[in-house]
């Protein structure tokens, strides 16, 4: 596992130099700033609009950024032939995959942190300067934590696909999985209602096999400041870690066997 840290730091630096990332990041910051503007258009539902627009914008841009960054890394290395320079060095392929993943995670984690801080600053600002706005609530932090878990898992899933296919294919598959993952519980409910046994079994199997992103989504609860139990958060965290590890193991196993000739 030698060399993970330099590869990770290098990935972080590389993402920082990527203009597309920067443009999306600036766009994201502007979007998060629209929270304050959107409140000016509403009536009676100030807290709700601030929460939904702020978390919604973060929830819209972060997965897009995570997908864009994670699906492009390895295919780009292969396309540019820079992968040969790396595999020729005394760094194992698994260390390379994990290093790249960690570097990617550092990038999206940093972007999420900045967006979250801007969002929190707006909540607190509206709380201090106007009659409405309850300020930061623990439900906001839970939703942001859920967003972080979602990004961790989505990056791992996208990364696993990026090790076997091109950027376009892996981003398409990962995007589909992202949406299906948010419908996992509906899929389960639908399969439960089905009278066809194989369909029922298939629905259940898909529910357990596909990444359940809905389990990590606490934005709905933040709207009404609903509480989330510690056990639920721990469960979501454990699920994310386990699924991420599994995806990285798969990605590493595929990458180990891959022939770059």
């Amino acid at each position: 596992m030698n060399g993970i840290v330099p590869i990770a730091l290098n990935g972080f630096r590389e993402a920082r130099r990527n203009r597309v990332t920067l443009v999306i990041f600036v766009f994201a910051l502007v979007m998060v700033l629209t929270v304050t503007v959107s409140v000016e258009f509403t009536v009676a539902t100030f807290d709700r609009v601030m929460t939904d627009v702020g978390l919604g914008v973060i929830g819209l841009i972060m997965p897009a950024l995570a997908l864009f960054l994670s699906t492009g890394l390895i295919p780009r290395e292969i396309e540019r032939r820079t992968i040969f320079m790396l595999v020729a060095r005394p760094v194992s392929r698994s260390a390379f995959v994990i290093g790249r993943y960690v570097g990617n995670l550092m990038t999206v984690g940093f972007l999420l942190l900045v967006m979250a801080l801007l969002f929190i600053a707006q909540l607190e600002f509206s709380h201090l300067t106007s009659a409405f706005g309850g300020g930061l609530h623990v439900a906001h932090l839970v939703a942001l934590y859920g967003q972080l878990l979602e990004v961790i898992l989505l990056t791992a899933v996208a990364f696993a696909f990026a090790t076997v296919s091109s950027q376009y294919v892996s981003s398409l598959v990962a995007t589909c999985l992202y949406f299906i993952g948010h419908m996992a519980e509906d899929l389960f409910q639908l399969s439960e209602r089905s009278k066809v046994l194989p369909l029922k079994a298939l629905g259940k199997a898909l529910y357990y096999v596909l990444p359940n992103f809905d389990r990590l989504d606490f934005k709905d609860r933040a709207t009404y400041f609903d509480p989330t139990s510690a056990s639920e958060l721990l469960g979501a965290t454990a699920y994310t870690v386990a699924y991420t590890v599994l995806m990285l193991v798969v990605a590493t196993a595929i990458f180990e066997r891959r022939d770059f000739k």
Partner: protein
Amino acid sequence: MLGAVAVVVLVLTRAEPYPLEARHLGELKPMLLRGGLATTVTRPLRPLLIDLYWLRCLVAMGEAESEARNRNLASYGFFLTELDPRFFHAYYMLGLSTPYSLGRDQYANGDLALQLVRRGLEQFPDDIRLRTLHAFLLHYIVHDARAAVMEFVKISKLPGAPAAAISSATALLVEEGRVDEAIDAIQAAMDDGGRGSMQLLSDRKKQLEIEKLLRELDAAIVRASKKLSRTPTSLDEVIQAGEWPAVVTHDMHGGELSVEAGRGRSSWLVGRMEGIPRW
């Protein structure tokens, strides 16, 4: 060559100015996804989607000044509450904005507003604001005073209900000519601990009792008018006509009875308890 093609394309695709009237029509149905589809497909972004539609809906509320535009508000209401059944303001504000006055106490879209508010009551059965809105719609929009009375009686029994709820119920009962029922309702509220203000209820009970007596006097005046072939101008004339007992010159609360413009009056009661005449 390329320039000629560009000119042809420009001519073919020339844009006519969008007619101003069409832009402000608003009668077109709002572009809304099917609730079930929106719930499933947009799940990760549902709160954002709901709020964007809510902001659009607030603009539509400002625009609403026709039967069709107000009907559109109900469509927004059903859509938003299907996505988020706990969205109280969607039930409340859109329930209030959906009816459209056609003049002379007639309203369009009352049924839609009622449907939306009733959907809200399934979620918030003990919410006084929503129940009061329900009673308002029942009475003023769909003119179902009996159902409105029942609603006001329900409101009066909710914890923290304003004393005005039972007063409103009694006012509607009196309007319907059910004075005894109104007195019973007030008495029940008083027996129940006042439900807000014992003084207000007690005053209301006195008003109702006097109103009941005045209605008896009204009937006596009508009978006296027939006997005298003219409308009596004082209580004495009604008594002399043998239609009113001579001993009852004051109501039970000390107000002096009189006849004004052919109707009974009490000095205790500033005005008679009766509804606003309808068209």
